[in-house]
């Protein structure tokens, strides 16, 4: 039998106990069940009676079967059955597992975990050594329990594994018996010779490797239209196709492209074209379906939401490599949206950074605007140039001398100057200064006492190169060189980009102090081995800013984002020159065809269930009827809740699939019926007159139902209504905060002869909503959008007329030229009135109205309906109608622009 079923037993001898089952059966059969006990007063009359058959009524056969089954299951469970064949260990000695757990192992991690579990299962009773390639190996041999725990805690790491270290760790073990060696590799050739040698010393090793080798993603280059991506694979044999996706900060896929590895190629190139805004929203690129840190490239995070405007006086259309604009654009485009044009046009577009390349004098009309722009927090970055040598305006950090300074030219004594290291207060502090950056020409600042504080960068001889001054809430920054490499080689160095990046961060609100502190970049958020974001661990060390570009991923520096807010640099697992090669020289077995599933827990659980059932049945046989067992009732009640939950779902589906009018169920049949009929009548009115065609209204119970599915709730007040539970109160609060509107109808004259604060409806309202966070209210102003949402209304009659309508207080109307309608932002979360509208709208099944509005009759009903329509349209469209008021002005403006 065992040969046909993929079933094996860890302790087959226990199965002998199955032979005892017939004995058990016999024992159970001869032992009578316990008698049911009962009191019986006329006991004397029973004396001497014989029930002919004294053999005890046998235990019922089904109970017998149940008990035998439980016993059999118990025996089977103890025999430790396995579904599937566990691997047979090759050697009698301890089990040694070398586990690749670098990033490349992440893809097949589940399979290798299962294999580890199987191997541990087979190695019952032996000593075990687990040597991960990434991460410290535990010294010494482990027992079964420790090994299982360590194996469970083993995770792929985001850095590559170190097989040399693993080989060294392996070399420290001494075995008396030949160990069973297993190498669970990731299939990638990476310095595997030492490990192979170390393994060979102990004897034969079984190597596992994944069938589909992991893919990697090389660093992404940005170009004018998007991202150029390069995927990397290990094998070269077949044509392979995969997908690379651009992923946003919240994990949403923004775009994807297919890349194709042709035969013999390990790299596949692709391009993801994205508009600038989307490009800025991209947080990382990843190979789809590969969950590993290596198949993912994080992008530097700059002030992505910022827009920079570039103004240049030099046209330079013909020679782009000499144009200031070209270099600025190249440097800024990864980090900001770039606009070009005149100063006034750019300021109209609300840029946050204004770059003026060689603009000596800002035209008089623009001067005030630029000053205001800086004062309000804008950043003005100016570059020197030919024009500025003739004198600049006063929007510069330091006064400039007329003329310039030539260094290292044929006519000059001095040689081209290099940059001095940045001072500790400079926002550029920490940036690496490439040795090749030289300055041949610059404009000079007038010497002054302030210049020390204002110089952010100097040349080695001490002349300020970049100066800055805080002005209002903004900054004026001056590069004393051109934006193009005409005067210096700075614009063609990486430092230029880094400097501009930090300036963008400064304009985005990062304090200059923080930027100055960025000599070493602390980890901000890191990746785990699967490429998922993780919080920085204590082991992750900051990276010196000037060494960042050369830093490779390691246990001390896991991949992730390093730096400060808005100036985060990405450290990625794979660098541009990396390559993957498949593991060579072994015939590795694939993962995944050896899993054995331990059946013991399931069998034990089944046996326990059967025994529990047996106990219940025995109780029942002895006279404990289920009626007496209260918890069975509880269980039944639980089972009844499930259909109830389904019904709730059905209601929610109904509400979610259509926009419906809804009222709050008060639990009072008459009030609820009026609400239902009222909203039905209002729905008929809406269907006839507007484009909104509501289906039949729904009643909601704030204690149970999800309110977020309804835009508007009609809530009639009645003194008999019950108080709300805290849960319902918080639901209603959420509903109002999330933009829902509740129409409270205090039904003043329907409930009594009083209006106002002492009316029963209003008192109920106060009682029910006492615990809610209510916005400030005001009587509906005459220019409120509710009076104009569909019909133009002056008063709001319902069944009754008069009374006041309260809404959330609007911000006060502007003094000059108040618009014809005001609505504030969003919809008033709460509208309170007392005219019993539902009664006015209420219709019966045939569409006949149920009540007579007083005193105005049918005319008043018409007005009530109009109010209802306004109310619904207001709740559905919000302040759209207030905006429509501006339509003529908007059209006019659009016309102007076209011209």
């Amino acid at each position: 039998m065992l040969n046909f079923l993929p079933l094996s037993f860890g302790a087959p001898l226990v199965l002998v106990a199955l032979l005892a089952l017939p004995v058990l059966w016999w024992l159970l059969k001869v032992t009578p069940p316990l008698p049911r006990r009962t009191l019986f007063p006329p006991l004397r009359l029973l004396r001497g009676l014989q029930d002919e058959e004294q053999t005890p009524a046998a235990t019922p056969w089904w109970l017998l079967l149940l008990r035998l089954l439980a016993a059999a299951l118990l025996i089977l469970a103890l025999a430790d059955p396995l579904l599937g064949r566990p691997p047979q260990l090759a050697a009698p000695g301890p089990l040694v597992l070398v586990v690749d757990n670098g990033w490349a192992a992440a893809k097949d991690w589940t399979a290798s975990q299962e294999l580890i579990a199987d191997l541990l299962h087979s190695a019952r009773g032996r000593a075990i050594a687990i040597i991960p390639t990434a991460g410290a190996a535990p010294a010494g041999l482990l027992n079964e329990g420790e090994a299982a725990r360590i194996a469970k805690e083993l995770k792929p790491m985001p850095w590559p594994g170190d097989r040399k270290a693993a080989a060294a760790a392996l070399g420290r073990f001494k075995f008396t018996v030949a160990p069973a060696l297993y190498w669970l590799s990731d299939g990638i050739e990476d310095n595997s010779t030492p490990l192979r040698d170390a393994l060979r010393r102990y004897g034969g090793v079984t190597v596992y490797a994944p069938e589909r080798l992991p893919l990697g993603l090389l660093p992404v280059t940005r170009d004018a239209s998007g991202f150029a991506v390069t995927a990397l694979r290990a094998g070269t044999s077949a044509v392979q196709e995969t997908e690379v996706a651009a992923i946003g900060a919240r994990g949403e896929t923004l775009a994807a492209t297919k890349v194709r590895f042709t035969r013999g190629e390990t790299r596949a190139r692709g391009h993801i074209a994205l508009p600038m805004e989307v490009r800025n929203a991209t947080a990382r690129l990843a190979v789809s379906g590969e969950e590993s840190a290596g198949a993912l490239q994080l992008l530097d995070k700059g002030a992505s939401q910022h827009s920079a405007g570039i103004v240049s006086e030099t046209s330079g259309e013909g020679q782009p490599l000499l144009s200031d604009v070209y270099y600025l654009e190249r440097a800024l485009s990864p980090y900001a949206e770039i606009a070009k044009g005149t100063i006034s046009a750019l300021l109209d577009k609300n840029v946050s950074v204004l770059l003026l390349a060689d603009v000596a004098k800002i035209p008089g009309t623009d001067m005030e605007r630029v000053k205001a722009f800086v004062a309000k927090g804008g950043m003005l970055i100016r570059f020197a140039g030919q024009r500025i040598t003739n004198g600049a305006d006063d929007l510069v950090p330091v006064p400039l001398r007329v003329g310039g300074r030539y260094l290292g030219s044929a006519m000059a004594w001095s040689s081209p100057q290099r940059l001095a290291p940045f001072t500790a207060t400079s926002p550029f502090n920490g940036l690496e200064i490439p040795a090749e950056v030289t300055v041949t020409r610059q404009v000079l600042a007038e010497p002054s006492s302030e210049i020390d504080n204002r110089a952010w960068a100097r040349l080695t001889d001490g002349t300020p190169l970049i100066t800055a001054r805080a002005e209002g809430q903004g900054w004026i920054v001056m590069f004393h060189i051109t934006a193009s490499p005409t005067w210096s080689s700075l614009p063609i160095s990486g430092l230029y980009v880094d400097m501009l990046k930090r300036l963008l961060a400064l304009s985005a609100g990062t304090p200059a102090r923080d930027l100055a502190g960025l000599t070493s970049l602390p980890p901000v958020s890191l990746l785990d081995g699967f490429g998922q974001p993780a919080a920085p661990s204590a082991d992750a060390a900051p990276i010196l800013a000037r060494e960042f570009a050369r830093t490779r991923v390691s246990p001390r520096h896991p991949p992730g984002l390093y730096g400060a807010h808005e100036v985060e640099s990405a450290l990625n697992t794979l660098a541009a020159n990396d390559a993957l090669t498949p593991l060579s020289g072994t015939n590795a077995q694939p993962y995944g065809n050896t899993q054995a599933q331990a059946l013991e827990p399931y069998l034990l659980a089944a046996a326990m269930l059967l025994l529990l059932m047996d106990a219940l049945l025995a109780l029942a046989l002895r006279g404990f009827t289920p009626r007496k067992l209260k918890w069975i009732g509880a269980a039944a009640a639980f089972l009844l809740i499930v259909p109830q939950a389904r019904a709730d779902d059905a209601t929610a589906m109904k509400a979610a699939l259509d926009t419906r009018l809804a009222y709050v169920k008060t639990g009072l049949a008459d009030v609820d019926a009026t609400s239902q009929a009222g909203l039905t009548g209002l729905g008929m009115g809406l269907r006839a007159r507007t484009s909104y065609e509501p289906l039949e209204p729904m009643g909601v119970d704030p204690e149970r139902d999800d309110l977020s599915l309804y835009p508007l709730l009609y809530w009639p007040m009645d003194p008999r209504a019950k108080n709300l539970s805290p849960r319902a109160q918080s639901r209603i609060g959420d509903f109002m905060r999330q933009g829902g509107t509740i129409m409270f109808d205090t039904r003043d004259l329907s409930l009594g002869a009083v209006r106002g604060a002492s009316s029963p409806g209003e008192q109920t309202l106060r009682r029910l909503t006492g615990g809610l966070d209510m916005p400030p209210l005001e009587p509906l102003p005459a220019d409120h959008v509710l009076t104009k949402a569909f019909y133009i209304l002056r008063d709001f009659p319902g069944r009754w007329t008069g009374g006041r309508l309260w809404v959330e207080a609007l911000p006060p109307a502007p003094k000059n030229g108040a618009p014809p309608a005001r609505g504030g932002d969003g919809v008033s979360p709460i509208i309170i009135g007392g005219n019993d509208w539902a009664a006015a709208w209420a219709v019966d099944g045939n569409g006949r109205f149920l009540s007579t509005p007083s005193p105005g009759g049918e005319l008043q009903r018409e007005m009530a309906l109009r109010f209802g329509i306004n109310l619904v349209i207001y709740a559905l469209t919000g302040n759209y109608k207030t905006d429509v008021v501006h339509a003529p002005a908007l059209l006019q403006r659009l016309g102007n622009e076209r011209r």
Partner: protein
Amino acid sequence: MSNFSALQHEADGLSAGLPPLMVQADHLAASVSLGVHGRRRAGMGESFWQFRRYASPDSAGAIDWRQSAKSQHIFVREREWEAAQTVWFWRDASANMAFKSGAVSKRARTDLLLMAMASLLVRGGERVGFVGMDGAPASSRVALTRIGRALFSKGDNALPPRAPFARGNQMVWFSDFLDTSALEAMKDLSRRGMAGHLVRIVDPAEDDFPYNGRTRFESPLGESDEIFGRAERVRSAYRSRFTAHGERVTDAALKLGWTCTTHRTDQAPQSSLIALHAAIGGT
């Protein structure tokens, strides 16, 4: 001190059931209408009995002038003697009576019937009392309260204790009469001139024997148990014994001129109450 408070506590617990019982009993009694029954002889009373010739010891106020004016003689109007009887109650307080197979125990039903009957008799102007209670029988609600107290007092006597019974007093005796010593006690009472009514309270389970399968029967009185492997097999034998026992009790009562009614606790109490009242009123 502690003994006293324990007793008081227990007494409170016991008498807590009393007011509801009295209300219930009153309701039950009100459903059976009744009047004072005459003794069919001249005496103190309301209703006319006969005219009689005036004799010397009669007072002048007793003369019926209208009747006397019709003839030569002077007549005196006599009224029927409406005397109250004394009815004693007793109910078996043994543990057997605590048995119940359904919602009502035999004792609870007994107490209800007893109180209802007493209430009915008090309305009819009879004197009622409980054997062994404090105070003499009375024809007011005070008597009912006394009976109630006696019902809820401690004690598990199956047989009535000796009491100052007068000849002609009636006895209403509630019990299951499973113990044949009750019949001896009845004979003794009868010898002392008491008329009586036995009310045999039967639980449906005692009558029908609805038991199946392996069952151990235990006595509430602590006698030895009986186990049957298949209880259903002894059902018919038991039922014939039970019926025979019932007939024995009835026969013994009839022989002494007493009556015997049987009440099953799953029946409505009214029917038994009416039957019982008819038995007493018919005397």
